[in-house]
């Protein structure tokens, strides 16, 4: 019986802290576990007793990378509870700030965290020595996203301008003009990013995934739509709890979310793209096709190209919104709280982010449920590794470890959201 053991203390280039444990016996994988160390962050519990209008700012603190997603899902859930519909320019501004978050989050992952895997560098710093212009382009592109979030959100990190019913303050057309100039450059840079990522080498790897994303009648989804999948799911966000369940897994502090009948599912850029290709802007569609992507992409390693296509879309969409923008009369709609349950689900950069709140007559939160994208993808990541590791089992431990890390980074896991991430250990016994 042949024994091998691989141990890596810390998986770099993911957001947060945690661990992956892989056990291999006689060249067969016998166990794979995500271990998440940090205790659950109890946000759901400490939202109880707070008022409905505090939820966007409290939940935004769950993640420094995707605070807008938390603000959007919580604001929409509260508006759903109180029967308020934000539309017109306020709705457009919400899409605009979401564009900013997608740009900054995706660009960070594409250039700084994921690209080094494909080019054989331990990190972006080493990569920058050989590809300074490319890394420089990534930095400036990300900055455009930061600028957009800072302008609409009040500041880059932990923005504070989103509220239930709209915003605290809305920009004038003049205030948006300088960022539009930057976005024009960014759109070109995003186009180059799609072309560049498409030249990387991708392992041949596909599984029969169930992709789940929002779908809107007209738009590529940010804030609204029905929840659909490639396996027949088509439900209102209100029915989320009837179809998905969070399971506590002994080895992880994060909950695994699964579809009640079918188990694991896949959320994020690949799911959105596969279910909404026809809703991308013409430029994003043409660019995707020009680099050889079809309307469906099932290879998670190619998520780096899809993320780049979404950055291109976000730049394009942001410019469209700014061009058509007129400052609304009021920055927010009035809210009359009453006892109700509200549901919100929006597309965070990493996939659907579900919020549900039960509110009393005084607008106080009685209970809250938050399901971040990474906990929904966790089981799919494990499943990928069950398939992927056997294909590379003969590699020496250090190389196998790198392959595992790359496969995990396909999902851009944000462990700050799903509690915290990631150390990696491979045991061969």
């Amino acid at each position, binding site marked *: 019986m042949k024994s091998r053991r691989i141990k890596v203390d810390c998986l*770099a280039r*993911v957001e947060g802290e945690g661990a992956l444990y892989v056990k291999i016996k006689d060249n067969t994988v016998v166990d794979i576990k995500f271990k998440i160390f940090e205790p659950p962050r109890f946000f759901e519990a400490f939202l109880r007793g707070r008022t409905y209008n505090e939820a966007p700012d409290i939940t935004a603190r769950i993640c*420094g990378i995707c605070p807008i997603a938390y603000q959007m899902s919580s604001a929409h859930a509260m508006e759903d509870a109180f029967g308020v519909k934000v539309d017109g320019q306020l709705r457009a501004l919400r899409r605009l700030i979401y564009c900013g978050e997608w740009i900054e989050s995706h660009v960070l992952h594409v250039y*700084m*965290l994921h690209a080094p895997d494909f080019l054989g560098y331990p990190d972006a710093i080493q990569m*920058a020595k050989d590809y300074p212009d490319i890394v420089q382009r990534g930095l400036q592109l990300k900055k455009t996203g*930061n600028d957009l979030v800072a302008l609409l959100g009040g500041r880059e990190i932990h923005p504070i301008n989103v509220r239930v019913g709209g915003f605290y303050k809305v920009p004038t057309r003049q205030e948006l003009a300088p960022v539009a100039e930057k976005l024009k450059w960014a759109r070109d840079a995003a186009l180059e990013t799609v072309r560049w990522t498409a030249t990387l080498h991708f392992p041949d790897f596909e599984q029969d995934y169930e992709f789940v994303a929002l779908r809107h009648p007209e738009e590529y989804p940010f804030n609204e739509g029905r929840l659909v999948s490639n396996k027949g799911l088509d439900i209102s966000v209100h029915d989320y709890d009837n179809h998905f369940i969070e399971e506590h897994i002994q080895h992880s502090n994060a909950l695994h979310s699964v579809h009640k009948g079918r188990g694991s599912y896949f959320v994020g850029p690949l799911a959105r793209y596969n279910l909404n290709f026809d809703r991308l802007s013409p430029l994003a569609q043409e660019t995707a096709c020009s680099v050889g992507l079809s309307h469906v992409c099932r290879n998670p390693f190619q998520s780096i190209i899809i993320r780049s296509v979404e950055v291109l879309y976000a730049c394009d969409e942001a410019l469209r919104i700014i061009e058509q923008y007129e400052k609304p009369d009021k920055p927010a709609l009035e809210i009359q709280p009453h006892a109700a349950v509200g549901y919100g689900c929006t597309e965070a950069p990493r996939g659907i982010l579900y919020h549900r709140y039960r509110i009393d007559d005084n607008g106080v939160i009685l209970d809250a449920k938050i399901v971040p994208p990474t906990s929904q993808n966790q089981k799919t990541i494990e499943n990928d590794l069950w398939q992927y590791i056997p294909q590379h089992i003969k590699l020496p431990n250090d190389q196998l470890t790198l392959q595992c890390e790359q496969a995990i980074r396909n999902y851009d896991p944000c462990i700050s959201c799903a509690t915290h991430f990631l150390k990696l250990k491979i045991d061969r016994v």
Partner: protein
Amino acid sequence: MNRHPILIIGVGNAYRGDDGVGLRIAQDIKKKSPDYVNVIEQSGEGISLMDSWKDADTVILIDAVHSGAQPGTIHRFDVHTQTIPAKFFHYSTHAFGVAEAIELARALKQLPQNFIVYGIEGKCFEAGIGLSLEVEESAQEVVKRVKQDIHNCSPLK
């Protein structure tokens, strides 16, 4: 000419115990800093950091570290002569944080002329506000040392 040739950056999270020490020091320095000094607070996100220092001649960055030394230990690095050990600053949940930003700027030949980093060894990084005693004492010492650095780098000299 650059109006604020000297930039002081306090990095940290005020809601994570000793991780807030960089912010606290920046606030102290800001109270009585000369006109040519700009003091800012940052969360530690690398790309924003690189952007914040791009026009400065001299940067002094202060952050909490977690290297295994005695709590309160003051580490001082001259970025031009020393590499920043990435593990020092890895308490942050940012995959691209202080050390990465400095090393990436070095790789891209975009480091400011003078660059000093102070790392204060933290003791408690749990959720909550306030510094532990050892870190509080070191914070006061670092404020003095940064003021001396500012004096040494003064464009008026």
